[in-house]
């Protein structure tokens, strides 16, 4: 690609259309080893860039469409000069043509896999491994995720929009990236909630049993004192019985999340590339300041939570 192409700016819809068109160009030419799709794509980009060289604003879809119309459908390029003079005829169904077309497409995909440009090869490999995740119980999905991320980064490095390749890469990226994001963002909810509920269950059971354990052996004073304090804290919440227990567990989760997000914010602040690397495309607009803000807001929330927790603990001791 020449530099001219990189100077041209497009509206988002025009950019998407151009990416689709260039994907068609590549697809039309892959089965023709005597033509370099890279070179043709670069020439087409230069052609378009030259058309709009004097434009000082982004190219709109309709402006781009007029140039693409003159360039013509890429499906015709590879067959220039090979068509019949009589032109296309209407026939019931051309089975031979259909089979040849399927064969050409399959060979085209294999050509991409074996000798195609890396960005498309990665995209097809990603999609293939994503499909294989069904019979392999998701094992290949992890590999597909890494191939997909590599394809995205390669396109970014070349300054090209991902275009039609997003349909091949994003299923794997999202299938792994979204659960990973949810696990990292909200992961502590489960262990903190389970710990609070477990402590509550133990304290309640021991109180009902007269502070003896499973073997009817009295627990130590220190243990008993701790459990009594927990139950006293629970009774500081409004309502009664189950509602107090739910509020206690919820309160513990809020504290755990505030602490986790403070740590997470500090980590993301210190390593600003991590969120966009691991959670693309969910956190694409992220920069280091967002990490600092998250740490600050969560830190304040943790401080307020700590104040409430101290008051509850103190009131429980007095009660």
């Amino acid at each position, binding site marked *: 690609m*020449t*530099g*001219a192409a*990189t*100077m041209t700016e497009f509206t988002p819809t025009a950019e998407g259309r151009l990416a689709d068109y260039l994907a068609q*160009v590549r697809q039309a*030419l892959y089965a*023709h080893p*005597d*033509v*370099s799709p890279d*070179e*043709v794509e*670069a*020439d*087409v980009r*230069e*052609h378009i860039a*030259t*058309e709009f*060289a004097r434009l000082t604003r982004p190219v709109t879809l309709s402006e781009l469409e007029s140039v693409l119309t*003159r*360039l*013509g*459908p*890429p499906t*015709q*390029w*590879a067959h*220039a*000069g090979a*068509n*019949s*003079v*009589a*032109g296309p005829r209407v026939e019931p169904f051309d089975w031979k043509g259909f089979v040849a077309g399927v064969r050409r497409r399959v060979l085209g995909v294999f050509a991409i896999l074996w000798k195609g440009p890396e960005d498309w090869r990665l995209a097809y490999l990603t999609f293939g491994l994503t499909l294989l995740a069904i019979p392999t119980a998701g094992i290949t999905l992890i590999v597909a995720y890494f191939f997909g991320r590599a394809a995205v980064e390669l396109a970014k490095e070349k300054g090209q929009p991902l275009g039609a390749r997003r349909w091949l890469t994003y299923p794997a990226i999202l299938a792994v990236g979204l659960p990973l994001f949810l696990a990292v963002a909200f992961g502590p909810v489960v262990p903190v909630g389970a710990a609070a509920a477990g402590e509550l269950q133990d304290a309640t059971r021991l109180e009902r049993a007269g502070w003896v354990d499973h073997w009817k052996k009295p627990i130590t004073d220190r243990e008993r004192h701790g459990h009594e304090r927990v139950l006293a804290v629970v009774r500081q919440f409004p309502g009664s019985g189950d509602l107090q227990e739910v509020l206690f567990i919820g309160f513990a989760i809020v504290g755990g999340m505030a602490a986790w997000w403070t740590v997470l914010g500090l980590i993301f602040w210190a390593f600003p590339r991590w969120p966009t690397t691991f959670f693309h495309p969910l956190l694409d607009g992220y920069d280091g300041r967002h990490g600092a803000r998250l740490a600050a807001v969560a830190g304040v929330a943790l401080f307020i939570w700590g104040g409430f927790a101290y008051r509850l603990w103190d009131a429980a001791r007095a009660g």
Partner: protein
Amino acid sequence: MDPEFLANWTTQMRKGLLELSVLAALRGQRLYGYDIVRRLAAAGGLVMSEGTVYPILSRFKKDGLVETTLVESAEGPARKYYQLTPKGRQLLAAMLAAWGEVRDGIDRVSTERLP
């Protein structure tokens, strides 16, 4: 006569002559891709789908008929210029000769009358 036939025939004839047209456009000068397309389009619509020229240029390059050079442009970044190689010039001469024969032959059969 089916009017579609003439349209198809004209299209196919132009497609058949496109390779010759591209080589001829490059005779004695170097041009960048966009310029070649513009010249062919301007010259009586020698090219129907402008994009068709680019795969032909790529094939010519692979076959050693043309070579490319990047040249700095006053309007911006470098442009890729195409120019004929000696092999390309030889082929162009042969194709022009063949084309001349066809053209002369058609002229002859359309003007000569049997005794």
